[in-house]
């Protein structure tokens, strides 16, 4: 299964993704002066998810437009589809965006997430059935629509949907904003200003749209020089090593034992403020260590609608 789009071509820094040339150059320079990257421990390889716009679908086949490529994917009776919740093949309508994860035990598609999106940030205002969210300096303000059924589910995890509080919801794209489906975190809410200590390099991995490119948002991008960090970012929940855009993180899903090298393409200053845990397989230490792109998240065996997995992060010191 082919990979979906890589990082975009625009200039690196806090305002945009690092260009491929910058990533390549930093890898060369780093290796020259500090030596080769430390070899990671054994792990299962990532799956090869792909992302694209649905061109058509029937019971046996899904056709996606991924960049300039047209991809045909085999559906099986076990293929599961998510569109605001578990649904059937009728959700695979042309024009919608799909993230597709292959089976790990043979040909065919395991999971399809249709028009899935996630909003993580600080609540700016709340209306009758919608809230305005500040998703951080790298992402635009977003409106989250809260239908009654979703509101009840979100309130279980986010009992105070008031301005100044953090929110994390998973939903589907709509012309008016994100249509919330469920909370993105399985833990009680924490106020935005709370910073708690946590053990380093073991914690939670979540996902974010990252502007439709692969890679990761990392909470501790150095604010100095050309590293790409946010100069006014608050101290994070976890004392992580300072890194830069283009650095390769070795991300290991502790639940599936799959690992992959994922480049940092964005400062994860919003993720840094969440001191929650993931309980996918055991209870992780507090703190979000990395926000992966949806495709990278699915590659490592994560379920996008679940919202997190326990992670071990390896970085060069």
């Amino acid at each position, binding site marked *: 299964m082919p990979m979906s789009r890589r990082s975009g071509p625009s200039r690196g820094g806090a305002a945009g993704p690092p260009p491929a040339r910058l990533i390549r150059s930093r890898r060369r*320079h780093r290796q020259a*002066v*500090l030596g080769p990257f430390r070899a990671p421990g054994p792990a299962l*390889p990532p799956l090869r998810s792909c992302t694209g716009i649905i061109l058509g679908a029937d019971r046996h086949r899904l056709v996606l437009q991924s960049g300039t490529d047209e991809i045909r994917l085999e559906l099986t009776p076990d293929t599961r589809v998510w569109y605001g919740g578990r649904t059937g093949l009728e959700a695979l309508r042309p024009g919608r965006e799909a993230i597709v994860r292959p089976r790990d035990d043979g040909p065919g598609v395991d999971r399809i997430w249709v028009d899935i999106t996630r909003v993580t940030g600080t609540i700016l205002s709340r209306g009758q059935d919608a809230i305005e969210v500040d998703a951080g300096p790298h992402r635009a303000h977003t409106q989250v629509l809260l239908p009654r059924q979703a509101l009840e589910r979100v309130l279980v995890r986010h009992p105070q949907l008031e301005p100044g509080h953090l929110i994390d919801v998973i939903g589907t794209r709509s012309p008016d904003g994100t249509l919330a489906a469920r909370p993105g975190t399985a833990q009680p809410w924490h106020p935005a200003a709370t910073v708690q200590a946590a053990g380093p390099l073991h914690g939670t991995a979540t996902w974010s749209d990252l502007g439709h490119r692969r890679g990761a948002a990392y909470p501790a991008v150095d604010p100095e*020089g050309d590293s*790409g960090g946010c100069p006014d970012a608050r101290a994070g929940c976890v004392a992580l090593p300072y890194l830069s855009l283009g650095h390769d993180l070795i991300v290991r899903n502790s639940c599936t034992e799959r690992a992959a*090298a994922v480049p940092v393409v964005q400062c994860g200053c919003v993720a840094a403020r969440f001191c929650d845990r993931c309980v996918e397989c055991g209870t992780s230490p507090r703190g979000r260590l990395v926000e992966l792109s949806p495709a990278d998240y699915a590659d490592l065996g994560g379920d996008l609608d679940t919202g997190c997995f326990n992670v071990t992060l390896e970085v060069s010191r």
Partner: protein
Amino acid sequence: MIEIVSGAQVLFLTAVLLTACAAKLVVREEPAPAGDEWLLKLRRNRRLAVAVALAEGGLGLALLVSAHPAVRIAVAAWFAAATWVVGELLNRRPDAGCGCFGGLSTARVGRRGLLRAAGCTVAAIASLHASGDGLAIAAGAPAMTGLLVATELALLVMLSPELGALLDRYRAIVPCEARPSPLAETYQTLHASSDWREHRSALRSTEPVDVWREGCWRLLAYPARIGDEELEIVFAVSTEQRHRAVRVALVESETEDSGPTPFRPVLA
């Protein structure tokens, strides 16, 4: 009374000189401050720093075992010279720290530091009237002498930023990879390094084309030319709180046709 005051100065100066000697030998200055001022050039010389420390230790011991006027005069001259040095630093490079107590004296030089050095000079002049060596004074000293020495030492500590620096060394130290490191600190370390001096002439610009952080290291890439060859010189400066290291590598300039980003291979 004059004898008590003079005797107390001998003990006070002995304590100061031996402490300064020990601090200079044990807590090495790093990084050596950058700059072309001759004072700073001297401070970058570790052998000279050791020699200064041994001289201070020798004077302190001499005060203990000898009542010869030459020793007292040498001590007075030493502190007078130190006062002048601190005054020069205050005027020219207050950011460099005085180095009076080795690596503990990294705080910006201020008037308190100048007052401290001047006070020691005054004490050294007052000690000229003391009779007997330091050991004899200590053995037969009345309580008033001890009280005076303690008071002077307390005043010295109040004027000294070194105590805070010493306490900081024993507090929890942030690991280098998670330690915020300002760019100014990186440049100071780099510009004071032998690697920088060795390669500076090859740089086409003293402004780096890229500065970024990799855990315990901050990397700086400079365009360079050696002969007819266009190169990039990459410096790596550690972000340790102390004993920061500098590494350097010469890298061929990247060509436009280097191909797409080679994503790291999947782990097996």
